[in-house]
C-alpha cells in the first residue's frame, strides 16, 4: 500500500501501521490472515471534513441552493458531519438528504440475494439545486453512477458534485470526485473501512487486508 498526496485536500501526517491500543483487540480477531492498518483517526477526519467544507464553499461561492445528499449507509452520517462543518462557516443551516441506491444497481441480476432496500429521504425538491453527493469510499464508480440515475428520477438538479472520504482507485467507470479527503492506492485484497460513530461506535478509517 502506498499513500498518495490527496488531490484536493492534504492530510498532515502520513498513515502509520497500527500500534494503537484501541486496535490491539481488532487485529487477528479470529482471522489470522487479516491485517488491519490505520488510515485516519477521528481528529484527522474532523480536520479533513473542515477543509472539505471550506473547499466546497470556495468552489460554490455563496452556497445558494446547495444541498448535501448522503448515499446510504455511511454517506449519510458523513453528509451530516460535513454539513455541520459548512454550517459553522456559513452560520446558517444546510439541508441534508439521504439516498438509497440499491434499486438502481447494475448487478441486481447477478447477485443471488437482493440487497436490503432502505429509505430514500429527500425532504426538499432537487430541481434547480446544486447537489453535493457524499459517500465514504470511491471505488469502481458504480455506486455513484447508480446514485446519479436515482437523483435524476427526482428532478433535474442544476449540477451534481461528489465528495468522498477515501478514493481508493480501481475505477470501472469514468467518474471522479470533486472533493477527496484521502487518496490511497490499494491492492485488490484490501478493503477500506470507514467507521462512523452513528453505526460503528467510533470515528476512524482502517485498511483491512484479507490476503
Amino acid at each position, binding site marked *: 500500500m502506498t499513500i498518495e498526496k490527496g488531490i484536493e485536500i492534504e492530510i498532515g501526517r502520513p498513515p502509520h501501521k497500527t500500534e494503537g491500543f484501541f486496535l490491539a483487540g481488532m487485529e487477528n480477531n479470529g482471522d489470522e490472515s487479516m491485517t488491519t492498518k490505520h488510515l485516519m483517526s477521528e481528529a484527522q477526519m474532523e480536520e479533513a471534513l473542515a477543509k472539505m467544507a471550506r473547499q466546497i464553499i470556495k468552489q460554490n461561492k455563496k452556497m445558494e441552493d446547495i444541498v448535501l445528499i448522503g448515499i446510504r449507509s455511511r454517506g449519510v452520517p458523513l453528509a451530516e458531519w460535513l454539513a455541520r462543518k459548512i454550517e459553522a462557516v456559513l452560520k446558517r443551516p444546510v439541508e441534508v438528504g439521504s439516498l*438509497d441506491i440499491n*434499486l*438502481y444497481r447494475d448487478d*441486481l*441480476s*447477478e*447477485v*443471488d*440475494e*437482493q440487497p*436490503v*432496500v*432502505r*429509505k*430514500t*429521504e429527500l425532504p426538499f425538491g432537487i430541481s434547480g439545486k446544486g447537489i453535493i453527493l457524499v459517500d465514504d469510499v470511491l471505488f469502481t464508480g458504480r455506486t455513484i453512477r447508480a446514485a446519479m*440515475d*436515482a437523483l435524476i*428520477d*427526482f*428532478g433535474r438538479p442544476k449540477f451534481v458534485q461528489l465528495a468522498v472520504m477515501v478514493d481508493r482507485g480501481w475505477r470501472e467507470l469514468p467518474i471522479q470526485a470533486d472533493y477527496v479527503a484521502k487518496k490511497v492506492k490499494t491492492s485488490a485484497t484490501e478493503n477500506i473501512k470507514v467507521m462512523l460513530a452513528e453505526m460503528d461506535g467510533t470515528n476512524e478509517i482502517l485498511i483491512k487486508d484479507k490476503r
Partner: protein
Amino acid sequence: MPLSVKHILSARDLTKKDVDLILQTARALKEISYRPIKKVPTLRGKQILFCFFEDSTRTRMSFDIAAKRLSADTSVITKSGSAISKGETILDTVKNLAAMQADIIVVRHKESGIPWQIADAFPHISVINAGDGMHEHPTQALLDFMTIQNSKGNVEGLHVAIVGDIFHSRVARSDMILFKKMGMHVHVVAPKTFLPADVEDYGVTVHNRIQDVVKFADVIMMLRIQRERMNSFFFPNEREYSKYFGLTKELMKDAKPDVVVMHPGPVNRGLEIEPEVADGPHSIILDQVENGVAVRMALMYLLCGTHGGEE
C-alpha cells in the same frame, strides 16, 4: 438475509423474519409512489404473469401498479379471455404462458389450492397466491399487518377483532394466521353459520356479538358479506345481519379512543359497516389500499432476487 420461501402461497410459510424483511422493504419502496416520476428501473426485463381466473379489480390493479413502478413487464390472462373458456386446463394454459419466460406468476382462482399446483408444476418460477377460493390471501394479510403496524407501532399484545363471514373469507384465514404469528390476540365475531368448523385451531377467541369486542379491541377488521358465495342458508336477511354484526356509529361510541377500523374491500355500505364509520376518523381503509401496492412491490423485488443462483 433472503426470504425463506420461494413462493408466497400461505401466511403459514412465512417466518417472522420474512415478515419483517417484507415490511421493511415495503416501507422503503412506498416512497416511490410519491415521486413525480413513479418508477424505478429495478425489475427491468422481468416478466410477471397475472393469472386471474376469478374476478378482481383492486388486487389485480394493485399488483399491476406495483409491477410497473418497478419497471417489470406484465401480461394478464383472465378466465373469459383465455383458452380456458375453450376447454383448456389451467395447467396447460399456464404451461404455455410460462414457456414465454415468466419470472413470477401471480394467481387468483376460485378453487382452493390452485397456486400450489402451479408452484409444483413450475419449480423455477415464483408463484404468488392472490387469493385461492376460500383458502388464503397472504398478500392481503401482509398489507393488513403493515397497516396495523404503521398506525399502532408495537403490535405485540394488541387485540384485533375480525368480524363477519369468517367461513367464506380467505382474507380472514390469512389474517388470523399472520396476526397470531406476529404476537397479537385475535378475536373473531360471527354468527355460527359463518364460522369454519376448525376455527379453534387458529388459536383465536370466538365471540357471537360485536358488542362483546368493541370495548377492548385495538383493531376492528370488518369483512365483506360475499353475496356471490352464499345463499339464504347462511343468514335470514341482511337487515338482521347488520343489526347484530354491523359496525355502526352508535357502537363506535363504546370503542377505545384510538381504535382503528379496517376493511379489505369492496365495502357493502350500510350492511357490514355504516358509511359514517367507513369514512370516519378511525378508518384506515384507504391506508390498506396504499400499503397494498408497497407490499406487492416488496414481494416482487424480493422474489426476483432469489432466482439468481438456481436453475
